[in-house]
């Protein structure tokens, strides 16, 4: 796909989106960020081609659109997450509907950002996901706080997976307020690494918790 020699240490990215215009936009944005060290090694425009390209390229990160012809980002995740544990997925969509967000995260994506994200922010998110961390947009943080609301029946939630710690809650609140990880760390007097640890823990809970409220919440929000 590229004729340049692969840059050592660069994050290898496959871009999956059915809009060619959008793909070229992202490509330009990521390439222009000088310190980004991000290399787009492949593109795909539907579920089948995405599975093919990702299997062939084995990238570090896949930027995955939620709505795709052939079954959506969900289908790509279902096909590849169990087989390629080293490939990390970052969902990228114009939709911020709760069921879209929750379903790709539950499907195995390491983060969710909307397409209104700026180029440098996207580059940062890609690098963060490549490092194994999670990427939460303010809206996703809000969703999680809402879904794991403290007011639910305490008897029903006794597992660690089903509730957030006080610290995780604080971190999510700040992210929902539009703070960057760096600013969150500064406000809570903790390191960025610790912030990332908290967010990854929340992501794990979000993916593994079989808490009934989570799915009910996502459906309920549609009706609001």
């Amino acid at each position, binding site marked *: 796909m590229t004729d340049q020699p692969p840059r050592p240490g660069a994050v290898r990215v496959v871009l999956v989106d059915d809009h060619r215009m*959008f793909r070229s*936009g992202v490509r330009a944005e990521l390439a222009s960020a000088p310190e980004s060290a991000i290399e787009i090694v492949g593109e795909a425009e539907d579920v089948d081609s995405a599975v093919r390209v990702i299997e062939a390229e084995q990238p570090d990160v896949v930027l995955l659109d939620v709505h795709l012809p052939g079954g959506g980002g969900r289908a790509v995740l279902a096909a590849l997450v169990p087989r390629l544990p080293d490939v990390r997925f970052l969902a990228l969509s114009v*939709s911020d509907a709760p069921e879209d967000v929750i379903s790709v995260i539950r499907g195995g994506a390491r983060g969710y950002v909307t397409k*209104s994200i700026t180029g440098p922010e996207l580059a940062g998110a890609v690098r963060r996901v490549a490092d194994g961390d999670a990427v939460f947009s303010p809206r996703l943080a809000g969703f999680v706080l809402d879904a794991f609301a403290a007011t639910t029946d305490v008897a029903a939630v006794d597992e660690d997976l089903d509730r957030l710690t006080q610290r995780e809650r604080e971190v999510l609140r700040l992210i929902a*307020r539009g703070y960057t990880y760096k600013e969150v760390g500064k406000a809570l007097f903790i390191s960025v690494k610790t912030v990332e640890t908290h967010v990854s823990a929340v992501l794990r809970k979000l993916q593994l918790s079989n808490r009934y409220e989570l799915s009910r919440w996502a459906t309920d929000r549609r009706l609001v």
Partner: protein
Amino acid sequence: MRAPACACDDRRVSIPPGTAAAPPVTPRLVRVSRGRLLAGVARGLAEHLGVDVLLVRILFVVLSVAGGAGVLMYGGFWIFAPLQPDPATESAQPVGRDRDLGMLLALGSLALGGALLLSALGIGLNPDLAVPLAVVGVGVVILWRQADDTQRERWRTATATHRWSGAVRAGAGVALVVLGGGAILVGPVDLNGRSGGIVAALVVTLGLGLVSGPWWMRMVRDLNAERGARIREQERAEVAAHVHDSVLHTLTLIQRSVDDPREVARLARAQERELRSWLYRPRADPGATVTSEIERVAAEVEDAHGVAIEVVVVGDADLDEHLGALLHATREALVNAAKYAGQWPISVYTEVEPQQVTVFVRDRGPGFQVQSVPEDRLGLRQSVVGRMQRHGGRATVRSEPGAGTEVQLEMPRSSS
């Protein structure tokens, strides 16, 4: 990326809200006309369940012979499972001796099963009754099968011979039913007894029902199909009207204001917001809640000042007087932030808790030294801090040069 990214939406607008993420449809049981012996029930079932068609047929025969349940089941499936059009094989339907033989076999086992069913019910074994009933049965099967053929013919171009043989077959079916019914009336039934009139009426009614059954069924199905089509048409018209009223209109306005990037951004943002709420919140509640009002206020400020505001709300509550004041304060804080935010989006985060509602308004503007601003110059002081205090709430302003400004508004909830 912001501008081009917002311009291309990855969701197909033709999908009406609510079905946007349609779940995979459960395959419906249909009868298959290709390679069928009688009505295609066995083949349809076999394809639906993923088993061999021979197995299903044997099962039907066994069930028919052992008590006659197979006949009832077959009849039920025949009536309720619709016939599926199969355009690939419609044009070349092989009509051979083998198939006729198979059909005869199927008919024979059905008749045998029917007789056994009647004997199980304690009616049969009287040859005077059984023979006419068998005649009626064959007539009904021919009629209903003919009805299926008529339906299939509507999917292909009917040839004259087909229509002719169809009429012959339908006539034969009617004749058989009438003959059988007549035989029952003339033969074993004592028409002169007290219940004779009722039995005669019953036999005639049943005969009429059996003869006209296929056409009734078809009429019901056609009605349903037509209603479905009308609903789809209405939905399509609604989507078209929406696209026309909002999206096309905005695109026209954008083309007219190409020289004013600020206006273009504002129009695009307003349209995006409107489309989003249409797509993702189809059943918006007209009642005013904290969520809906915060979003409305943010939308108004976006429109008036051409900034982007990211709204995140956790929880929800009905509005009261104090929360109304909180909304006013939020608007002031947003307007203030919009003046300094520059190109960066403003973040609004609202959390509704049982005891209080907290709103954070954050911009990424230049920021300032909170202490160094004179009392009278700070627009926030009066409109935001004062208003919050009058309603028993609290407002805090945090700012740092170079790191933006954040206004925190807290309002206790009235015990309700």
